């Protein structure tokens, strides 16, 4: 699920950057630092929407670097158990397939795929196929997340397509 969330980020700035273009540098530094990262607590930070407060630079004694505690608003993506998401199949093997849901990779095991869809090892690329449907690399699927595990910097998720209205979407 997507959220707009206010977050903070601490930037340490080297004295050589102190100068007229410092603010733009801080902004670009913020973007490059946080966008695309994942924290277990908030999920994936998709994009920074706006910078609320760039912060007052505090020069640290000893190093001479300035510390900016920046507050910004960002779109974050955090998967939840039971959530239905759309994804693109990335890799198929005999035990199931991996689907990319944005930055998140979800594994759908073959037990959670409808039994009509059977793994076809002879096909190229490998696929799960039934008479009228095929799941192979770059197929679009709708799946439901059945479980997530959150690390400090990573999120793992398991999905299912063995329910109504789930599976291949055109």
């Amino acid at each position, binding site marked *: 699920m997507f959220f707009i969330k206010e977050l903070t980020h601490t930037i340490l700035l080297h004295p050589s950057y102190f100068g007229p273009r410092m603010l733009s540098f801080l902004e670009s530094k913020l973007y490059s630092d946080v966008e695309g990262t994942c924290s277990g607590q908030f999920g994936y930070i998709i994009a920074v929407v706006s910078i609320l407060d760039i912060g007052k630079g505090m020069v640290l004694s000893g190093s001479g670097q300035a510390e900016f505690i920046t507050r910004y608003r960002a779109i974050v993506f955090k998967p939840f*158990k039971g959530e239905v998401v759309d994804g693109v199949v990335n*890799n198929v*093997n*005999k*035990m*199931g397939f991996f689907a990319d849901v944005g930055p998140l990779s979800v*594994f759908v*095991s073959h*037990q*959670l795929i409808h039994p009509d869809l059977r793994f076809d*090892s*002879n096909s*190229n*690329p*490998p696929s799960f196929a039934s008479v009228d449907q095929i799941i192979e690399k770059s197929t679009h699927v709708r799946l439901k*997340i*059945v*479980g*997530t*595990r959150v690390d400090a910097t990573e999120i*793992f*998720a*398991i999905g299912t397509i063995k329910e109504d209205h789930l599976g291949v979407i055109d």
Partner: protein
Amino acid sequence: MASSATELFLPPSFPYPIKVVSIDASSSSVVQRGTRLLSYSFVHVPAQPNAQPESRFGTWDSAIDGTIQAWKVRVGDVISQRKAKERPVVLILEECKHGMQISGLCVLCGKDMTNSDYIGFADSSRAHIQMTHSANGPLVSLEEAQRLEKETAEDLLKSRKLSLIVDLDQTIVHATVDPTVGEWRAEGAAWKARQAAKKNDLGDLNNSEGEDECNPNWEALEDVGEFRLGPETFGLPSNKGKSKMVESDGPVYYIKRRPGWQEFLEDMATKYQMHVYTMGTRAYAEQVCALIDPVGKVFGGRLLSRDESGSLTQKSLQRLFPCDTSMVVIIDDRADVWEWSPNLVKVVPYDFFVGIGDINSAFLPKIEPLTPVVPPAAAVPQASPVTDPAMDSPPSADPAQVNPSLPAPASPLEAAKTELTEKAMLTQNTIALEAQVEERPLAKKQEELQVASADPPTAIGSQAASKDTKIAESTVPAPEKPPRKAALLKNDDHELQRLGKILDEVHRRFFTEYEARRAADKVKPSSSRKRRDSIKPKPAYDVTLIIPHIRSEVLDGVHILFSSVIPLDTNPEATEIWRMALMFGAKCSTELTADVTHVVAAKRGTVKVDAARKRGGIKIVWVAWFTDCIALWRRQDETAYLLDDAPTVPAADPLQASALSDEAADDEEWDGGEGGGNTDLAIAAINWDDINDEVDAAMNESDDDEDARSERSAMSEDDWTDDASSIQTTSGPSTPTRLKRKRLRSVTPSADGTLGNGTRDVLRSPLAKRKKVAAERTGYSKLKEAISAEDVHGGGAGAGTQRQGSVEGDGDGDSGGQAQVSSPGSRGSDDGTQGGEEEEDDDEGGGDDDDDFLARELEEEWG
């Protein structure tokens, strides 16, 4: 997903024996992780001295969620450690067995498996088998693995396929990072462009025809694929390959695909489901696969590299097929990494870039050739080409051979365990690669080859001219040199065709048996698929049976006696070669028994060889015959490998004098004898043809150590008593024989060592013919005659002559000191000669010879 109840065992950490005090969760009650299942009591003896044993209590909590199905213990039961291990205590029906997990999640119920608490049982340990090719694929439990494998097997059976695991390096391709290849290819490409340009403007054809010559290796190199790994730069790839840019990019890999790879892969893909299992890195494997399987329809992403393998020194079939390996065939050039798996069809390593070896397994223990001679060189022992002593020398002579200082062989398994050593190995591999880039072994080889191939003209033509060409070659690859340069790299490999046949055969046999079994099953009215599956213990169709069976047909009915192949101080049954022989269906023995059919010898003139020769009907062959048989999985025609007994090359080749150290030492002695003016004169006076005939006859009859020894003694005597021997030479009919043999012998040591020259090959056939004729004419009788003549003369040695006929005759009685040391095996024939002529100078020759002989005997047995 609850197919069957989970059996719970008591943890081994309990202070057994324990007594069940109470059962706290009744049958058919729902338990969760942490619910108390039972309480127990145990006897505890405190650590203090004189303490009384006391009763203590403990509890056991459930580690899983589910419904209790049944208890297997009752209150009051005493459980010992052994019992706890063998018998489950309680059966719990689970909702999800978490049989397949991925990155700490159960893929079925989505539960987090990385819970670690006081119970000490993490659910993540329930699925630990990695079955997929990718490193981060799901892990499965044994139960799940079996189920999956059964599914796969059924699919394969339906499509009439087996699984084939293919190694890349030296099996399907040969890779190198030697930049020389790049340069040669650039040369070749430039040449091709010139040719094309020439064709375009026809007028120019005449003027430059003679001068423009292409790199000799271009033909073989034309289809070599190349790619670069490592940090990718999007800049221009500099063609010259010399600039600094290239160095930082990491080396270019040159991949030579084995001739016939396309047909092989396509053909096999119809009969096998193909997997790649390589010791290379993932990136490397993917690049190579892109070269050999551009569309991806052969391997279809079934690719396992060392990044996923989990071991740097071993390949494991269980990694991909954890339970059932009855439908898997492996092709690899190394059997040791597979621990001689019965599924393995060993391939003759593809060595296209001569001397490079396997660039991806420098950290593996170096493979020991079965014999001191490398197979390619030894393959045709009598007919190896004149050109290349450098090429024939075993790879260890090559400076760039990748792992000169590897200590690993002693403990490869232990080493693999520590990450540190793994790192060291990898660095070593990198170092080896760098060395290859810098040292350019190929360029060196080519140079050597040029020099070597320039040698024959040296012999024929004028010395100076050939020297000129030599210099020209070694400095610049001169395009104006008239004869076409010899190619170092050749397209002469037919291994894949042979391999294809074997794999076809395996496939055919498997499915014939499968069909037969299925037909038999169908006959039974009530039989069903399930039933066939359930009957596990008689798998008639099983690759692990078929492959050894095919293998054992290769040398079926052959009974081998090894001679000077197995070192004396080792247990013959434990040696590699012995095991190989058994594997290929041969029988082996250590003694010459009645049913021995082949003697496999590493050198001439051993006791066993001589004994076998006397016996007759036994094929005496070089070790190369054996190695070729097992390498090619076909019994080779022995005639090409026969250990011919009469080495009759007229002049000793100085190149080969170093064959064996002891013999080299002997050489001097011989030369001394030969150089003696008298002897030479005497020889010159003799009719050569007659002598040759007689010699051949004599050699045919008994070419053995003792013979040699007797001659040697005579030889050394010659140094002392030149007069005596020369007188004899002119007198009796026997002595010319002896003398000639003596001369021959002086050649022998070098001739049977490394055998590398064509002169010998040329000479062989007429000589052999003559030998045959001689044998027929003389009927092996000349010697006997001679001896009897001497016998009359010498009187006292009469006993020796009589014994001569019997193979097992022991000649200890007659000929002085030397006879006491010799083995009784094959003394018969020389006793006579010895005895006869020893009359005069026994006192000198005896002692002298004795030492020499002892040394020889020893060295023969050790070496």
